[in-house]
């Protein structure tokens, strides 16, 4: 009898709280299928809204950077982890978004960010066209070429980009309230990132998302199964560029200045690093990867600051070494990235008091 009671308890527990068993499509589709998960999600969103009241301007600034980077990384996730297409030009899309937003700043800021996303998406569509013919490594280098050409344009198209000096923005304004501190701007960032995150989370389990996954795994068998190559590849590029463009627009409003050096090849590499370190193909991975890539330099900064000014010059080099080593370590030791580490911990914890 004790055995039966224990078993019943364990089963109820795992249904209610542990997400181990999913019984309906509605459960499978839900963002958080268990009551506990729903509570956590609501609590998390509430916390996001209250953060500016708790934290000072500098932590909010770093947090804003993380959120924006996570958005850009999510776009790259959809492309790399979803459709299996590699892009070394994410920074260029960020730049397109940022420069567009720099023309529509002040009270028009939300519109500018959106326009930045749309314009980047348009360029992404154009860049996506060759991807129908160019494959694998050749595509990677074609996007690299795009990155360098974009920098050339940013540097030289004076009337749109302000050349090397770049452009300055007035602080964003909503209903007459200037959002001139990172804490205030946080709400503008949330207004864009939260919906886009929910959308991205759902995207990979929709028809379009599954078509991407099929394409990633095997192009030929995807075609046989009825996936149309052209719209699928183009939509992947389009969405990835849109996410990057919005991220760029927000970044412009955060920095309040846009110069070409914010969008160099190294930045594209950083975004790829976020994808790899976070774990390709999941939303959580984008957030974890972005947090990692943003926070590591900040941590190194404090560390180097503690060691003394003699080491300050070596900071950039040190950061490169740490990044490079981490990318290699993750690729060789934990290909699923931080998400892989996290899911192991979660698998252990979610049945924790009654593991069998």
């Amino acid at each position, binding site marked *: 009898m004790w055995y039966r009671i224990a078993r019943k308890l364990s089963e109820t527990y795992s249904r209610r709280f542990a997400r181990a068993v999913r019984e309906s499509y509605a459960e499978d589709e839900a963002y958080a299928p268990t009551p506990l998960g729903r509570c956590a999600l609501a609590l998390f969103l509430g916390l996001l809204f209250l953060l500016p009241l708790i934290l000072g301007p500098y932590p909010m600034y770093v947090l804003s950077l993380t959120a924006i980077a996570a958005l850009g990384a999510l776009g790259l996730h959809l492309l*790399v982890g979803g459709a*299996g297409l*590699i892009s070394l030009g994410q920074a260029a899309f960020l730049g397109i978004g940022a420069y567009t937003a720099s023309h529509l700043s002040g009270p028009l800021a939300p519109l500018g960010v959106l326009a930045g996303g749309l314009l980047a998406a348009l360029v992404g569509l154009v860049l996506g066209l*060759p991807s129908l*013919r*160019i*494959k*694998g*490594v*050749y595509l*990677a*280098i*074609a996007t*690299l*070429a*795009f990155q*360098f*050409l974009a*920098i*050339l344009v940013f*540097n*030289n198209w004076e009337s749109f980009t302000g050349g090397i000096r770049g452009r300055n923005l007035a602080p964003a304004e909503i209903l007459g309230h200037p959002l001139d501190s990172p804490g205030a701007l946080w709400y503008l960032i949330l207004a864009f990132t939260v919906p886009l995150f929910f959308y991205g989370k759902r995207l990979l389990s929709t028809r379009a998302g599954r078509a991407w996954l099929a394409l990633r795994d095997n192009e*030929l068998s995807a075609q046989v199964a009825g996936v149309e190559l052209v719209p699928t590849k183009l939509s992947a590029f389009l969405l990835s560029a849109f996410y990057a463009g919005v991220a760029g627009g927000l970044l412009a409003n955060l920095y309040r200045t846009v110069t070409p050096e914010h969008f160099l*090849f190294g930045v594209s*590499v950083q975004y*790829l*690093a976020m994808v*790899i370190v976070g774990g*390709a193909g999941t939303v959580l991975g984008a957030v974890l990867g972005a947090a990692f890539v943003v926070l590591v330099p900040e941590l190194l900064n404090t560390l180097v600051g503690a060691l003394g000014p003699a080491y300050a*010059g*070596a900071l*950039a*080099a*040190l*950061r*490169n*070494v*740490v*990044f*490079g*080593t*981490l*990318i*290699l370590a993750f*690729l*060789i030791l934990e*290909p699923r990235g931080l998400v892989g580490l996290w899911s192991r911990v979660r698998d252990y914890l979610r049945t924790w008091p009654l593991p069998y």
Partner: protein
Amino acid sequence: MSFFLQLLVAGIATGALYALMAMGFVLVYRATRVVNFAIGEFLLVGGYLTYTLNLVLPLPWAMVLTLPLAFAFGLLVERGFVRPLLGRNVVAVIMATIGLALALDGATQLAWGPDQKYLEGQLPVLTLALGELILPSRSVWSLLLALPAALALVYALKRSRYGVLVRAVAESEVAALAMKIPAPRIVALVWGLSAALAAVGGALLAGLSGVGPHLIAMGLMVFPVAILGGMDSVGGALLAGMLVGVAESLSRGYLEALVPGITEATPFLIVLLVLLARPYGLFGEREIERV
């Protein structure tokens, strides 16, 4: 006209160095399907090795001794970072070499500092004057070292026993293993060779104009060259290297005044156009997809 010829010759000389690096890059791609984004850092390591050896040895000896060291470095990279990732998808391998590039980039700066280093001693000045055309010593040295090395490599791949083995492994590793060809050793050899070829460029540049982090930019030019020539054609890389060198030199001479900064972008512009017309480069083999 003589300005044009001057640019042409300078371009061919730079192009010879590009070609040398691109051949190592393409060789690695053929044998292992790995795109080595760290090739610029290989060049840099070659340059710094020469600099370090030069602290105790005269310059020519330092340059010669760099080659076996760079070869060993290539073996090390293959064993440490490439072999564990065998069989993983393209994105993972590309990321791994980018990670390696970042790490090497930072490590060389930590070890040798960010400023330009100049070497003790000098290469003999070999300025040639052919009528109006003046070949600077730099160009003569590039041509003198890079061209024979490149041609020898093409010849060795076609004729020598090891060349045949390398091509066999590139064709099909499984079939090569079945024929009792020691494929892992051949792959390691190819990586070592690639690092050594890049180091020739690095050592030469170090000897001519010093060594500093900016040399990495030179490594980036490998991609347009390799793509233009077709990723799997060593001979194509040789020709494409010259082409890119000349294009770059001409754009520096004629276009830079109109659009500043275009010289760095010209090779990539050409690549984008070529890829649109021929998705497998000028001399690359079209990958046939079997159903």
